């Protein structure tokens, strides 16, 4: 589609505006991380920071245990995301491409499984983990994050597989591909964007989870980053500059993860040109 120059300019302006609007709170977090406690909220007009210090970052990074927490967070998060994607794709295929007895029931289950508020499940889940002896181990968290993102993953991927015209697969099968081959060569590449959004979502959800991590992991050495983040608060004070600096550091892996998978978004798009 070709657009006229004014239309393109308008679209670009809208894009910049949207980006700035969504950037602002992040920007504010970032500038706050450069402020001393006295400047965090001050009468000064400080839309553009008037002074900057890196001491918050220094104190955040030198807080004991950062690397351990980071490693733990990466293990449980990436593990849960991968597991959910694999199991999710497996379940999404038959849902979208087969008719079988119990299919509707399974769909309903997947939908309803997401309805229960997690905050009410933490006691039963704690008891479950206690009884199978997984408390205070990283797999317990991995399992919970996997389980909580799985219904969502299945459902999303099912939607994405469904959105890809079956004619394409059929055409490939006529060209001599097996059903599996056709799925792998035609649908899976087209599924790229779907896999990306779903995994980014699971990643961020698991990456941010606090309560289960706090309650399941008894030892400090097994805690994750969200718990570390709350350690800037003591009974009588909160080091807000430190919290913001830590939050900046903390958001970086999620952004890196996105930038890695983001290329898939583009390649998924070009894969759209696959001819049947």
């Amino acid at each position: 589609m070709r657009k006229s120059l004014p239309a393109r300019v308008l679209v670009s302006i809208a894009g910049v505006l949207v980006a700035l609007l969504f950037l602002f709170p992040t920007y504010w977090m970032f500038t706050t991380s450069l402020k001393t406690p006295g400047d965090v909220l001050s009468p000064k007009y400080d839309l553009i920071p008037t002074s900057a210090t890196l001491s918050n970052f220094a104190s955040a990074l030198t807080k004991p245990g950062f690397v351990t927490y980071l490693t733990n967070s990466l293990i449980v998060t990436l593990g849960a995301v991968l597991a959910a994607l694999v199991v999710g794709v497996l379940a999404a295929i038959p849902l979208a491409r087969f008719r079988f007895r119990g299919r509707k029931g399974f769909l309903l289950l997947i939908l309803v499984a997401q309805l229960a508020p997690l905050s009410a499940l933490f006691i039963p889940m704690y008891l479950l983990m206690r009884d199978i002896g997984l408390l205070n181990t990283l797999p317990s968290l991995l399992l919970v994050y996997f389980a909580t993102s799985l219904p969502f993953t299945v459902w999303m991927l099912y939607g994405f597989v469904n959105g890809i015209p079956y004619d394409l697969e059929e055409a490939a099968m006529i060209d001599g591909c097996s059903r599996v081959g056709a799925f792998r060569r035609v649908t899976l590449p087209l599924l790229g964007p779907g896999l990306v959004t779903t995994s980014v979502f699971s990643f961020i959800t698991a990456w941010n989870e606090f309560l289960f991590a706090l309650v399941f992991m008894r030892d400090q050495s097994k805690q994750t980053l969200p718990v570390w983040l709350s350690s800037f608060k003591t009974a009588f004070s909160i080091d807000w500059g430190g919290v913001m600096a830590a939050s900046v550091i903390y958001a970086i892996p999620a952004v890196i993860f996105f930038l890695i998978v983001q290329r898939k978004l583009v390649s998924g798009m070009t894969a759209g040109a696959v001819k049947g």
Partner: protein
Amino acid sequence: MTATKDTPVPAGATPPAPAHVGAARKRGSGWFSERLMPYLLILPALAAVLVLLGWPTVQMLGISLRQLDLRELVTGKMVWIGFKNYTDVLSDPEFWAVALRTVLFTGALVAGTLLVALLIAVLMRHLNPVLRIFVQVSLVLAWAVPVIATTTVFQWIFDQQYGILNKTLDRLGFHSFIGYSWFSTGTSTLVVIGLLVLWQAVPFVAFTLYAGLIGVPREQYEAAGIDGAGPWQTFRAVSWPAIRPILTMVTFLSMLWDFNMFAQVWAIRQGGPDGASTTLAIMQYLKGIAGSHFGSAAAIATIMLVLLLLVTGRYVQLLVRTKDGEIA
């Protein structure tokens, strides 16, 4: 769909394991594998959901009929009290006001999220690559920032005295905003919470819709272009059908997330002032978790579940049905 050919797996291909099993069996008994394969494929997901989510949910239902305070939790004693937890909650006039508020708040949030996200998704499709990445990164940042930081930053931005918003409005000539309190009434508190949630929820929905949009094979757009369709007609004819199932899905998801949302509402004013921004999730925390009355917490959670089923019930039906298409 049933007219599958029994073609062997091409040499060198490494399909996913369970599918491979299915394909291999297919040679022997097409009917059997066709019947069995779907079950084998969904088995891991089914088992995980049943054990890790289903079982705790069943337990939650059981707990809602018990008195489960710290004492009972520690001693493991079972104290069954029937429906007392439920009658306690339902007889509280405040409950119904809170329930209504939660439903309205959820509705407004979901509508707002979808509208903004759809606009952004379409916008992303039309942006040049550099700007698109810029928008995408800004969205991911909004999404990736930890909740504790976001909620705090929003409180600061809206601070009565030193917040950058009031200071900026003052500079722009709206002097009445000097010392304006955004948290003095429940409604304006909910508006601020709504903005916060919108800011956090839109990125995911926008990305999902965007992924749905670019999943549409390009030639369909080209075909529409050749037919002389304008942008709006192209959207209606090509984009809309492609994203409609996804839109249905994210609507449903947004509904249940916004309905159950706790952290953001709690962080801003703990449901205040005077309880005027209390939602059901906050009520569940205040009446249940805060005092370690897990029976009450489970009862409120169950009521929330039922309410949510009622609100989304038609929707669940719609979802299952539209996806099934020809399957009655």
